[in-house]
């Protein structure tokens, strides 16, 4: 698609030769590549504005504070949060979800209560809830899947009950690539008095997100999966919930007064941002948001849909390919394709594709419970983004055709 070619020039890494050729980068679910505009924003921050924000009364520190707080405002606008204070910067989605587990979960879940998550959660939206359930004597319940990989409507209806205190679901599965109807799940959670935590790691870079419309209580995502640097992430939380919560990490900048034996906390959001924060990362995040909004999510979704619709029929022609999550009965498939090559372990597939300059992920993709549920030890995963082209798909498919031969199997 012409669109992708237009964006490709902005991504230095994708224009470099690696082992003599350009990489067909199909591991965007793990992390995306970075546009020059974002890289320049980080250079600009460290080259011209660096100082510790919130600390000094001098011009540079004030500038750094403006950049950091400006990033908060920009991020709030980006996901349609009601106010900037509802944006907490973290290092990634994992830290954001842990923040909710420790600061909300441990204080609001009690013995006999229930936490409901889906079987397709990334470990970062599963393991913290195991911790809360164990610490508080609560039960962790799972929403399982329909045959087509979508969350079981019956489980959503029956497992979220009066005993449920927290419902935590991903907006898009990082393995199956299926979009969940998060708004309906939030509504169900609220109907029983539970809060709903949404993992937006696989959605926020690929579709317009409106947390006010979703009405979710918490929403977490990582910057690095949306063109930004590694080490900046976001937790959105409703103000009244954040305001009532205990801090997560304690130290500098998150306090009001500190006595010898006691301390009081700063207001939200500072209460949750202990220590010097990643201001350069926040500057990068803003540049990424600018970049994405300039293109627009309609176009991004169209590019990914084109790649998906181009790839799927080609994959289905290959008798040795097994696909997961590609037969959704709803119109909710995103540009993530989990697959296996018959008889060949995913790691061998990935190594063989790598030899042709095609980068895919192999393993359990931090979703072991889902793989166990699917009866698969591991899978390969290709995940697309706005700079991918049909040529990348062709290279992937051509390389896949070689895999069985390399290991000595017939076609």
């Amino acid at each position: 698609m012409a669109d992708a070619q237009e964006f490709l020039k902005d991504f230095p890494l994708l224009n470099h030769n690696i082992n003599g050729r350009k990489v067909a980068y199909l591991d965007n679910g793990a992390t995306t590549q970075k546009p020059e505009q974002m890289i320049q924003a980080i250079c600009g921050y460290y080259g011209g504005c660096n100082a510790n924000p919130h600390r000094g009364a001098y011009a540079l520190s004030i500038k750094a504070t403006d950049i950091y707080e400006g990033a908060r405002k920009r991020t709030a606008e980006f996901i349609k949060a009601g106010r900037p204070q509802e944006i907490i910067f973290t290092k990634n989605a994992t830290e954001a979800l842990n923040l909710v587990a420790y600061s909300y979960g441990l204080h609001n879940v009690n013995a006999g209560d229930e936490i409901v998550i889906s079987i397709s959660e990334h470990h970062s939206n599963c393991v913290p809830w195991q911790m809360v359930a164990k610490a508080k004597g609560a039960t962790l319940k799972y929403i399982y899947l329909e045959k087509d990989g979508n969350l079981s409507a019956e489980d959503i209806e029956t497992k979220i009950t009066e005993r449920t205190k927290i419902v935590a679901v991903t907006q898009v599965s990082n393995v199956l690539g299926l979009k969940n109807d998060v708004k309906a799940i939030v509504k169900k959670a609220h109907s029983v008095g539970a809060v709903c935590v949404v993992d937006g790691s696989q959605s926020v870079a690929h579709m317009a997100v409106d947390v006010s419309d979703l009405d979710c209580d918490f929403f977490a995502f990582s910057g690095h999966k949306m063109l930004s640097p590694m080490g900046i992430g976001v937790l959105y939380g409703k103000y009244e919930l954040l305001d009532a919560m205990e801090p997560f990490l304690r130290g500098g900048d998150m306090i009001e007064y500190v006595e010898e034996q006691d301390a009081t906390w700063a207001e939200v959001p500072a209460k949750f941002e202990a220590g010097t924060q990643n201001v350069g990362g926040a500057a990068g995040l803003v540049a990424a948001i600018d970049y994405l909004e300039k293109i627009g999510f309609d176009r991004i979704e169209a590019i990914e849909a084109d790649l998906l619709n181009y790839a799927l029929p080609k994959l289905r022609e290959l008798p040795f390919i097994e696909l997961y999550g590609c037969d959704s009965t709803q119109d909710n498939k995103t540009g993530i394709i989990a697959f296996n090559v018959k008889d060949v372990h995913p790691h061998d597939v990935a190594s063989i594709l790598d030899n042709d300059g095609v980068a895919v992920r192999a393993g359990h993709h931090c979703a072991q419970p889902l793989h166990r549920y699917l009866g698969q030890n591991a899978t390969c995963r290709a995940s697309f983004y706005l700079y991918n082209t049909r040529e990348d798909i062709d290279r992937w498919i051509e390389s896949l055709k070689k895999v069985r031969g390399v290991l000595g199997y017939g076609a």
Partner: protein
Amino acid sequence: MALDDVYTEVLGEHSRNPDHKHKLSCATCQMKGKNPSCGDEITIELQVEGGVVKEAAFTGIGCAISQASTDIMAELIRGKSVEDARRLANKFISMIKGELVDEDELEELDEALALKNVAHMPARVKCAVLAWHTLDDALKDQK
């Protein structure tokens, strides 16, 4: 590096048709090994008598490199003393880590030499060494 430097015929043969992938009814010790990040999981079963590894077999799942490496190892250590088997394990691990390259030194690894180019694939090193680390663990307390 060319792909067939790693995915050699020897490797393909051992991964597709492993000779020693089965349960061992006469096993005197067994040890599990895993690479959680890959999902490789093997169980090595050994019959050790009088300080000698009389039989070796394995079960489990994993990639071609880990499965072939395990099968080749089982073949190599059968009939070897516990001490020799552990020495070979450490030699193999040194080869894959790229620490040992002397061909004369490596010769006794026999078919396992077919895996030496894995040393150039950092992402796959742990696949190749899984069985050998597991063997070393299993034999630690054996006399």
